[in-house]
């Protein structure tokens, strides 16, 4: 049987689902609200109100427009899309249609693949409001950097795929749609908890937490394409789809399905382990190279062969620690493969730390150590160059010009709050009335 026929069937099922149309309606409204708010804030930072204008270099469309607008989709992926994905499996289980499908001359794996493809199609359709926002932004004269946009979309698509896979696995494993929804929400909350617990802790917990959907998404939002993150998300997604197919084989004994789960778990575990050990490459796709040092500094750092250990005496939620993590350690991890960061403090807030060294950052390279309290990139690099004996290159000023745009989002409210809902509601009503006509005819 052709995969195309199976996909056609799944698309028809999605189109018949009221949940999907409601999702489109809500996503459109929320995207509009986010975009309009972001545009107004961006216009004000660009000096539209006559107040102080922010430094142009600080005005990046990635931070100011793209990330907040697409951020709505994180909400949709967490709270709305799981129900659409669960419905695709749970309805067929509860109506016993699955028993018919298991007898079709198409393996259940192929059928799950068709469901995944149709869900990706649904995801692409749901991105139409974001596409409208991008179009409006360009029409207002806004700037876009294609690699940033594509990277961000890739991140959200992977996040969507992961959620769809977990939702389908939960629907296959659990006895009803409500139970499956609880499992998916528990998974999401679990990853949030891991993210929270692991912040500033170091070790394997922090490594694992860097692959949670939330953490992975943050990398994409910074314009960073982490190959390891992408591979881990793909492996977990495949694991989820595999799990769904395994548990929908109703003709297999529970023992056989448990064995199948174990095999999938081992394969996924080995895959993730291999990625963690072997894959380190990442690409800075941000236009302002926010995840990288200057090229001269990268070349200078590449000369350091010895492992560098950095011990920040700062608690996880100290804003200085967050700045240090986001502005310096991210870049150092990309430039120094032999970097080790030790997090010596257990407290989260730092309010009750009674450590004489609190606020210090200790650098150790071979037998040499240095201590500093500064978290700025320049001082950190200077400290590392002094320890290593590598000659510091001359400072290069950023060439990123920044893209201020002092314009209000004229017409956006009409499109997102009137035209989009009108289109979706018209489709919903026309589908309903078509059914009513048939019922009356009967």
């Amino acid at each position: 049987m052709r995969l195309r026929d199976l996909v056609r069937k799944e698309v028809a099922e999605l189109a018949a689902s009221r949940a999907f149309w409601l999702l489109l309606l809500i996503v459109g409204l929320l995207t509009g609200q986010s975009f309009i708010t972001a545009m107004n804030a961006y216009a004000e930072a660009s000096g539209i109100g006559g107040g102080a204008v922010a430094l142009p270099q600080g005005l990046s469309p990635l931070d100011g427009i793209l990330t907040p607008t697409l951020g709505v989709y994180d909400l949709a992926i967490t709270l709305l899309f799981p129900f659409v994905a669960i419905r695709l499996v749970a309805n067929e289980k509860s109506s016993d249609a699955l028993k018919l499908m298991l007898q079709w001359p198409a393996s259940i794996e192929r059928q799950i693949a068709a469901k995944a493809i149709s869900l990706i199609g649904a995801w692409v359709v749901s991105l139409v409001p974001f596409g409208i926002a991008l179009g409006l932004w360009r029409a207002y004269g806004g700037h876009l950097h294609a690699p940033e946009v594509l990277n961000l979309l890739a991140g959200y698509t992977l996040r969507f795929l992961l959620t769809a896979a977990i939702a389908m696995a939960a629907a296959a494993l659990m006895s009803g749609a409500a139970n499956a929804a609880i499992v998916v929400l528990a998974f999401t909350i679990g990853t949030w908890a891991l993210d929270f617990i692991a912040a500033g802790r170091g070790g394997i917990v922090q490594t694992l937490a860097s692959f949670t959907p939330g953490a992975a998404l943050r990398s994409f939002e910074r314009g960073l394409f982490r190959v390891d993150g992408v591979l881990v998300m793909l492996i977990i997604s495949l694991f989820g789809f595999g799990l769904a197919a395994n548990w929908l084989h109703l003709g297999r004994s529970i023992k056989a399905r448990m064995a199948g789960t174990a095999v999938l778990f081992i394969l996924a575990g080995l895959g993730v382990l291999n990625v963690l050990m072997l894959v380190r490459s990442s690409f800075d796709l941000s236009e302002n190279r926010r995840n990288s040092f200057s090229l001269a500094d990268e070349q200078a750092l590449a000369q350091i062969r010895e492992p560098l250990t950095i011990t920040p005496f700062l608690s996880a939620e100290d804003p200085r620690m967050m700045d240090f993590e986001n502005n310096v350690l991210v870049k150092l991890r990309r430039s120094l493969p032999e970097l080790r960061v030790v997090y010596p403090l257990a407290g989260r807030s730092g309010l009750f730390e009674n450590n004489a060294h609190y606020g210090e950052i200790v650098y150790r390279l071979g037998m040499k150590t240095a201590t500093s309290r500064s978290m700025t990139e320049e001082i950190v690099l200077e400290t590392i160059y002094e320890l290593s004996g590598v000659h510091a290159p001359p400072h290069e000023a950023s060439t990123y010009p920044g893209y201020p745009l002092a314009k209000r989002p004229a017409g956006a409210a009409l499109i997102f709050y009137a035209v989009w809902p009108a289109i979706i509601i018209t489709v919903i009503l026309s589908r309903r009335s078509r059914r009513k006509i048939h019922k009356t005819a009967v």
Partner: protein
Amino acid sequence: MTLEVTHLSARRGARQVLADVSFTANRGEILGVIGPNGAGKTTLFECVAGVLPFDGGKIDSDLLFYVPDAIRPWPDQTVRWTLTLTARMFATQFDSALLDDLDLVALQHATVRSLSKGEAKRLDIAVGLASPRTVLLLDEPFDGLDLRQTRQVMEILRRDAAKGRTLVLSIHQLSDAARACDRFLLLDHGRSVAEGTLNELTSRTGAEGLEEVFLALT
């Protein structure tokens, strides 16, 4: 021989639901599986169709298709969509004469969800007939149908069997079973108690009619 089941057994937890069940169904015949509630008729069908696991035994069969009892597959889709889908999934053309035969023409654009019990049953039978498989297992094909519809469906099934398809029907109404089937498999507590034509069963038990056979053997 189009379907041969030998020594089939299945457990659900600690409960033995099928024990050493053996039977055959020949090309072009209608085999009725009868038995009291809980005898294991549906479990037998689902094991044979491969949608439930079984613990032991052997199933030799041509390609078969099983339609469960009282299902409303894809409730948001229309009757026509469901039948067209079934035919397409088996790479055959949907024969719209099926809609005529089963009085579904007026309902073809109605959603499956909106069908009454009897209408949904006619759709289930149509789904089975839309498949080109040479062995068709229908669970309770007359349940929910009125007398006229029951006779009409019997007639359709007879015609289908005459074309060479083997039909295995699970039926709890013995009067319907007696009218519709060529041979019978009597199940009780997961065991096959008897198999044969009505004449064979009555001469074996000395009973008159299928109901008497049922009462004598279960």
